[in-house]
C-alpha cells in the first residue's frame, strides 16, 4: 500500500512537471512569435530555442526553421524544416518553405523520379501520424469484438455469418493499421537522415580520411544515412550516389 502511494505521487509529480515545462515552452513560443512579428528574428530565435527542449512536433520546428531562414542560416533552417516534415510530411507550408530554402543552397541534386502511387502511399502512410493510426487501431479493435459478439449471440443465421466474417475482416484491418502506425513512428524517430553543415565536404569512398573523393557536397544538402562505422556515416543522396562522410560535417535530422 505504501509503495503504491509513493508510486502514484511520483507519477503525478512527473506529469505535473511535464505539464509545467510544456506551459513554459508555450510561453516562450508566444514570445518568439511576437518578436518574429516585429521582425526581430534574433530574439525570436532565442525564444524558440528556449522552448525547443520541452516540446516537439511540427510547430516548433517550423518556426525555428523560419527564424533561421530570416537570419540567413540556411542549413539550420533546412534541418528544422526536415524535422517538421517528420511530424507531417504532407504539410504544404513546410514543403513550400523548404523548397525555397533548398533553392538557396549550392547543391542541386537530381532526385530520382517517384511515381504518383509512391507519393500517394507515402502521404497516406504518414498523414495521420502514429497517434492517428493508434486511435483507428482502438476503434477497429472495438468494432471487431462487437462483430464477434454478434456472431455468438446473433439471432438469425445471416446475422451470425455477417458477424463472423465482418469480425475477421476488421481484425485484418486492425493488423494493417498497427503496421502503419509502427511505420509512421519509425519514420518520425528511427529513420535517419542528416543535413550537411560544412561549407564544402568531400564524400569519401571508404570510412577513412585518405580514401578517394567520390563527390563533393555543400552546406544545406540532405543525405540519408545508411550505416555508421565508428565516426563515419555511410550516406546516400537523392540521386542514389553513396559515400562516407565524417560525423562532424553533419547534423542528424
Amino acid at each position, binding site marked *: 500500500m505504501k509503495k503504491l502511494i509513493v508510486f502514484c505521487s511520483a507519477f503525478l509529480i512527473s506529469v505535473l512537471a511535464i505539464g509545467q515545462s*510544456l506551459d513554459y515552452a508555450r510561453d516562450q513560443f508566444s514570445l518568439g512569435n511576437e518578436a518574429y512579428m516585429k521582425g526581430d528574428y534574433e530574439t525570436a530565435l532565442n525564444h524558440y530555442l528556449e522552448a525547443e527542449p520541452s*516540446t516537439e512536433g*511540427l510547430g516548433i520546428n517550423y518556426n525555428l526553421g523560419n527564424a533561421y531562414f530570416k537570419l540567413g542560416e540556411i542549413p539550420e533552417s533546412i534541418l528544422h524544416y526536415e524535422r517538421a516534415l517528420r511530424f507531417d510530411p504532407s504539410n504544404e507550408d513546410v514543403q513550400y518553405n523548404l523548397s525555397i530554402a533548398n533553392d538557396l543552397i549550392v547543391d542541386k541534386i537530381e532526385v530520382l523520379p517517384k511515381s504518383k502511387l509512391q507519393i500517394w502511399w507515402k502521404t497516406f502512410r504518414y498523414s495521420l501520424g*502514429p497517434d492517428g493510426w*493508434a486511435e483507428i487501431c482502438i476503434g477497429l479493435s472495438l468494432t471487431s469484438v462487437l462483430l464477434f459478439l454478434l456472431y455468438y449471440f446473433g439471432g438469425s443465421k445471416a446475422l451470425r455469418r455477417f458477424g463472423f466474417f465482418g469480425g475477421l475482416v476488421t481484425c485484418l484491418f486492425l493488423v494493417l493499421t*498497427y503496421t502503419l502506425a509502427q511505420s509512421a513512428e519509425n519514420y518520425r524517430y528511427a529513420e535517419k537522415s542528416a543535413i550537411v553543415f560544412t561549407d564544402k565536404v568531400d564524400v569519401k569512398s571508404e570510412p577513412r580520411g585518405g580514401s578517394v573523393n567520390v563527390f563533393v557536397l555543400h552546406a544545406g544538402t540532405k543525405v540519408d544515412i545508411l550505416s555508421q562505422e565508428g565516426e563515419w556515416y555511410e550516406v546516400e543522396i537523392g540521386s542514389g550516389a553513396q559515400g562516407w562522410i565524417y560525423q562532424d560535417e553533419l547534423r542528424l535530422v
Partner: protein
Amino acid sequence: MKKTGRHNWIAIVSILCFPLFSWGQGATLEATVDKNPVSVSDIFKLKITLSNGKGSIETPDLNDFQVVFGPSRASSYRIVNGRQTSSMTFSYTLRPKETGTFEIGVAKANVDGKILTSSPIKVKVVEGASTAASGRGKSSGGQKASPQSANQNLMVRTQLSKSNVYKGEQVVVTYILLSRYNNIDLGDIDFPTLDGFWTEDFPEQQTTWEPKLEIINGVQYRKAILRQQILFPQRTGTLEIKPLTLSANVNRSFFNPGENLSVRSNSPKITVKALQGGAPKSFNGAVGSFDFSASVDKTEAKANEAINLKVKVTGSGNLKLIDEPNFQFPEDFEVYDPETNDRISVSTGGLRGSRTFQYLIIPRYPGQYNIPELEFSFFNSSTGKYQTAKAGPFDFNISDADGNVPTAGAPRAKNLVEQSGLDIRYIITDANVLAGPRSQFFGTPLFWAGTAGPFAMLFIFLIYRRRKEALDKDVRGKKKRGAGRMAQKRLKAAQAALKSGDSQVFYQEIFKALYGYLGDKLGIPIGQLSRQRILSELRSSGVNEAAVNDVTYVIDTCETARFAPVTETSDEVFYKRTAELIENLEGRLK
C-alpha cells in the same frame, strides 16, 4: 584729358604703395645643409636663413665639426610680383671630424619678441672619398657616379593621404620627384600597377617644378609632382603599393653627355579595414559622405504617360562605384532601367560631385499609387558608421484617358496577379499546437489496453460461458447416469415398505422412484415434472407405445393408491412390474 591723366597717376601710385605693406607670409627660420650624408674627408655648407623678419640670430653649437669658413652673412631683399621678401643668411663651411651621426642643434631667432626655431639636422658622416658636392658641382666621375650618391640628389617618393582606411574609402596617392640637379631630362617613368585597388587618375598635367623647395634632412630639393591618383581599396588586409621607377639624364650640357640615373621610390603600405557588419538593407557599397535627394516631375498624370523620377547622390567618396539603388515600385508601374549622369571632379580632396539616376516610369492603370520612402545607405568613413538617407515618399494620382481618378474601391481593369517577391511563408502563431516531447500515444500501455483489451474481454467472456455450459452439461449427465441407481434405491425403500405392509408408503416410494428416474433420465427439472411432459418426452425420444402405456399405468395406479387401496393387482406383482419397466426403459433411454 588732363583730368584723366591725374586719375591714372593715382592709380599707379596706389598699386606701387599697397604691396609695401604686405610682407610675405610672416617670418621663418630655416637651417639647411647642402649634402647629407657627408663623407668624412669632405666639406659641406650649413645655411641658416631668416626670411621676412628682422632680429638677432643665435647660431647652434657646431663643436662636432671643424668650421672651415664662416660665418659669412648675406642679406637680400626682393620684390616679386609686388610681393616683398627679405632674407638674412648665415653660412658656414664645415668639415666633419669623424664618422658617425651628429646633430646640428636648433638655431634661434628673436623677431619682434617672438622666438623662432629651426628644426635640428642629423648629419650622417660616412667613410669614403669626396662626393659630388651638389647637383651644380662638377661631376668629375661622369656616368660612373655611385647610385648611393645619385639617390641622394635625385629621389622619387610615393605619398599617401592616409594609410589606415576602410574598404572602399578613397586615398590620394601622389608620386613626387625630388631633385638637386639643375639640369634634368626625365626618361621613362614606370608607374606601379595597383592590385586590389580601383583607381581614378587626376587629369593629365605637365610636370613642373613647385615654387617652394622641400627640405629633407636639412637638404633642399626641388620638387615636382609626377602624377596623382585616387585609390579605392577593394580588398581588406595590408596592401602594398609597388615602387615607382624612374630613369633620368642629368647634367647634360654641350660639353658633357650627362649622367644616366635610375631611381626607385619607397613602397608604402595601406591597412584596409573591413566595413562593420550590420549594414542596412539598402547599403550598396557606397563609402564616403553623401547627400541623397529625389524628385519627380509630376504627381498627377494620365495612364500610360511618362513620369520622371530623379534620384541624386551628392558628396565625396566612391561615387563612380555606386550602382542604381534598388527601389520598390508599385506593381502597376512599368519602370525602365535608369539613365546615369555623372558630374564628378577629381582633386586632392578626392572624388567629389554627384551621380544622378533618372528613372522613366509609366503607370499602366489609373488609380492612386504610392512610391514608399526611398532609402540610400552609405558607410561614413570618417565616423566609421553606416548612415541612411531618405527621400520621398511620393503619391501619384493617375487618371484614365478622360481624366477621372478612380477611388480605391471602384472596379478597374483586371490584370493577372503576379508573384513578384519570393519569401518563406509565415510562422505558426498558435502556441497550443505544441505537444510535450515524446508525448506519443501509440505504444503506450493505454494504447495496448485499448487495442488488446476488447479481445481479452471477449476471450474471458467466452471461456467463462463455455465453462458454465460444461458444468451444466455435467450435472445432467451425472443425473442421467445415476438415474438407474437412484431408482434402485427407491425401489429398495418400496420393498422395505412392502415387507412392513405399509401399502401407502409403498406406492409413494414406487411413484417417487419412477418420477425421479424419468426426470433425471430425460433431463427435466423437478419443478417442471408432470405426467404430460414425461409422456411427450418419452414419445419424442423414441420409446415404444407399450412402454409408454406401462408408465401411464404405473403412474395412474400410484396416484389412485393415494386415495383408495389397490385391488386389481397385488403389491408384489406391481413392484416387479415397475422394476421390469425401469429396467426396460434403462435399456432404451441411453
